[in-house]
């Protein structure tokens, strides 16, 4: 099997070298003198990838606006809950003319935690082929379908070697999101009334049944590409002290669905980067949702242990989510090596 690329950052990438550049100490002295918070001084070699949707609107829901609130320390008891995540892999298996034929693999799972122990509760995987079908020719498409794998179209008006692959990758991503929604739905039917933490935004779970029964869904977002706040509110959110949260705000989800969200700082970021230990949490709107924010925040604060190291995102990667990733990674390896 061809080696597959991964969209997830590697551990090596995440654990970038921490060292001041040549004039770094002098610059940091100036910043410190000006009252600025010092960062970790991580060294990068390339510009960060472009952000697709940098800004969105948000409306505060609490009387105190976005102001930081101390959540009162981590919860003492372990909460029985599910944790969901998905993975995707794809490989360009060949070219028909200049049209890429991509083999995709996606998988999603939910681990259920009971009495502090995680066990698989739902798991799905799918392997398929993605290509600009109109450009392949009917016989090849039939032959590809003859492999037994589903064949999906990644149509493009005009051939472009990089954008063709990018479009195929988007198909892979959509398949992964669909699979994640499937396992979430499966878990919800098996464990109604049990909290389910989804890695990432709830925006992918807004359709139909899941949204209707989404009272126990919690989305945990580690990346902060889209900023919902601005000005002082933004500074409040991104400079929260450890163990504090912002006020809840409302944001727009896909298809006109609203989502409630708030920021939560898991770890002290002094001497680190701005986003160190910072989560954004999402829930579907509903009665009492705002009132439960403190309880959920304390619960998530408790999830700082165990740490997810050596994963480079360990400062905000919840250990159960990390385990879902490990579970799926092991399944991917088994699939990729069993051919």
């Amino acid at each position, binding site marked *: 099997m061809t080696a597959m690329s991964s969209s997830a950052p590697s551990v090596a990438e995440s654990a970038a070298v921490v060292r001041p550049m040549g004039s770094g100490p002098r610059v940091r002295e100036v910043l410190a003198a000006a009252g600025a918070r010092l960062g970790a001084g991580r060294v990068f070699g390339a510009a960060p990838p472009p952000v697709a949707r940098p800004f969105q609107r948000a409306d505060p829901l609490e009387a105190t606006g976005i102001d930081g609130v101390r959540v009162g320390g981590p919860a003492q008891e372990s909460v029985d809950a599910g944790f969901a995540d998905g993975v995707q892999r794809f490989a360009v298996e060949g070219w028909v003319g200049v049209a890429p034929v991509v083999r995709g693999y996606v998988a999603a799972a939910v681990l259920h935690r009971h009495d502090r122990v995680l066990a698989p509760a739902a798991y799905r995987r799918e392997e398929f082929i993605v290509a600009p079908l109109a450009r392949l020719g009917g016989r090849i498409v039939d032959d590809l379908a003859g492999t037994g794998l589903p064949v999906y179209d990644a149509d493009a008006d005009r051939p472009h070697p990089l954008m063709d692959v990018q479009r195929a990758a988007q198909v892979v991503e959509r398949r992964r999101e669909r699979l994640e929604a499937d396992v979430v739905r499966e878990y919800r039917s098996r464990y109604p009334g049990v909290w389910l933490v989804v890695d990432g935004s709830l925006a992918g779970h807004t359709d139909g049944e899941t949204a209707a029964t989404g009272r126990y869904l919690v989305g945990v977002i580690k990346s902060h590409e889209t900023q919902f706040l601005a000005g002082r509110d933004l500074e409040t959110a991104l400079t929260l002290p450890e163990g504090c949260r912002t006020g809840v705000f409302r944001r727009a989800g896909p298809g006109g669905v609203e989502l409630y969200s708030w920021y939560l700082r898991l770890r002290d970021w002094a001497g680190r980067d701005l986003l160190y230990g910072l989560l954004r949490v999402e829930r579907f709107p509903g009665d009492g949702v705002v009132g439960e924010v403190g309880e959920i925040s304390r619960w998530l604060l*408790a999830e700082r242990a165990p740490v997810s190291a050596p994963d480079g995102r360990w400062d905000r990667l919840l250990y159960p989510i990390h385990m879902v990733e490990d579970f799926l990674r092991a399944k991917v390896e088994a699939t990729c090596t069993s051919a």
Partner: protein
Amino acid sequence: MHERMTQGDAEPQPIGRVVATEAQPASPHQFHFWTAVATSMGIGAIVRVDDRGRTVYAVVVDARAYSDLDTPLHDVIAAEGRPAGGPAPTRRVEIRLWTAAVLRQLPEEPLQPVPLAAVYLASEEDVQVALRMDAYLRGTAPSGIPVGVYTGGGLRASVHLDADFLLGPESAHLNITGVSGLATKTSAVEFFLKSIFSHLPAGKGGVAAVCFNVKGSDLCFLDQPVSLTAADLEMYHRLGIDPEPFARVRYFAPFKADGVNLNTLRSHAALVGDVQPLVWGLQEVLDFHEVLLNRDDLDAKADAFIDFLSDRIVDREFRDDWGGVHRVRTFTALERLFRAVFDGLEAGGRTDMWRTHHVATIRKVRNRLLNISVRCRGLVTDDGVSHDLPFGAFEDRALYVIDVSGMDQLAQDLVFTRVVSKLREHLERRDLGVDRVVVFADELNKYAPADGPDTYVRRMLLDISERGRYLGLVLFGAQQFRSQVHRRVVGNAGTTVFGRMDTDELATPGYQVLSPATRIKLATLAKGELMVRHPHFTQPIFVRFPRPPVLAGPDGLAKFPPAPDVSFEEAVVRHLVALDPAVAPTQVKEALAGRREDDVRRALLVTRRARPDDVVAYFRASLGPRVAQREVGRVAGAPVPLRSVEDPYAP
């Protein structure tokens, strides 16, 4: 992550999977597998791996558990430096990784690495095949001797040894090691003997056992029943052994210094009657003078003179150079001869040589030999009649217990050496009465030490170890420290058993072939658990054995407290009453009136040995006609007390 394990009754379910990496590959003799965290697996469990026509049986020898924690520092970070902090909401994923040593592969050729396949707990039949017991448990002439119950992985399966490899002729001998104080060694040997007596096929011939009780009351109550637990009874049932005490036990003990009270802790009135005296005279002892005399005593000249005594004088009519005629059968008669020689030499003006032997050598040998009856008083008699084990009439499935616990080391050595020598003589001639004899000797590190002087006893043990299996003379040896026993003695034991071990002993080189986990298990073994090595088992196996169905020493002493020594007269009465309960004590006391104690002792031994129908009449006849006593002063030829046993030239 914790995998759920299901195990139906009908269809065995895998409990693990073999894993192999480049760093930890599966080889033909060892492999690794993981199981769920909650598992009945443990060190010593037997497992099976099946894959495409190949079946591998193995025993678990090591285990590790670890989590995905990359460094302990991460746990410190997670707990925020507070050890007292509560548990994290999620348990880290952990693994139980086991190492198993291969017992057997089928097919056996070509020998290949263990397949990377599912792992199953062994069934009872698997245990038989894994330990190659199928070769001697099945077929027309099974020869299995149960040694205990394998209890790994929740299974209970009987484990058998091969009689041909336990009692000869293929291999033989059993050696057991364990710390003192747990009674494991003695209990195990008692159970093994019970198992042998129950299961040795009749076609293998008769078997008896000779046990030397070297300390305390360990072996004094082997004929007395004990209350067993339900678990013990279940094991006896499973192993097909009747949980009853030994049916035929013959006890032997020397006398105490008074010559009538037996030197044994089995002296309770209800039991002492079947303890037979062990008394030897000059003839029995002289052949084993090497045991009693140390190297300094036994120079070439002394040895030559002793040979002269053995070959030319003892038990023959011997005419000295001064007209005397001697028939030396006792120490008293020997002393009479010595006195005649010394007097004759003095009278003739010769003081240096007699029959090519220097008089100093003769005096030295005289002092040493006559001192034997002093040092071994109660066992060796000056002029009494010997009373020995029934060599030539050993009974099948009988246990002969020789209680030497009250004797000093020298006398113990003499008893051991002579008894084993006699057993060997009779087995060589095939006239012992049985075809095989198991000799149980405890404290091997004392009798056959790895270091120290080359003693007669050690040479004897080496000889049994190396040649005994051809004769049917089987050594069951026990010791606390195997490393301190002569390696040829332990090395020749085909079957080796280990109870709970001392950690210092386990640190010696002989145990480095065992995995660390196996060594730890050995250091913490519960009473009643053993590790067994046997020629058919390619790896050591842990088994449980039931409590022997006999009264243990301390319990026996509590139930049958030793009787205090009684007067000479009363002791004689008891001996005769034991022979015939109808004997009237008054008759015996009348017969004893005015008799010399030496005469009484001799008559008593003669009577015990003869076991006549009319005990009192025989005893009276043995005493001989009553002679009026009068003071005659010192008589020439009578034994002269030694002034010193250390000075070879003392008169």
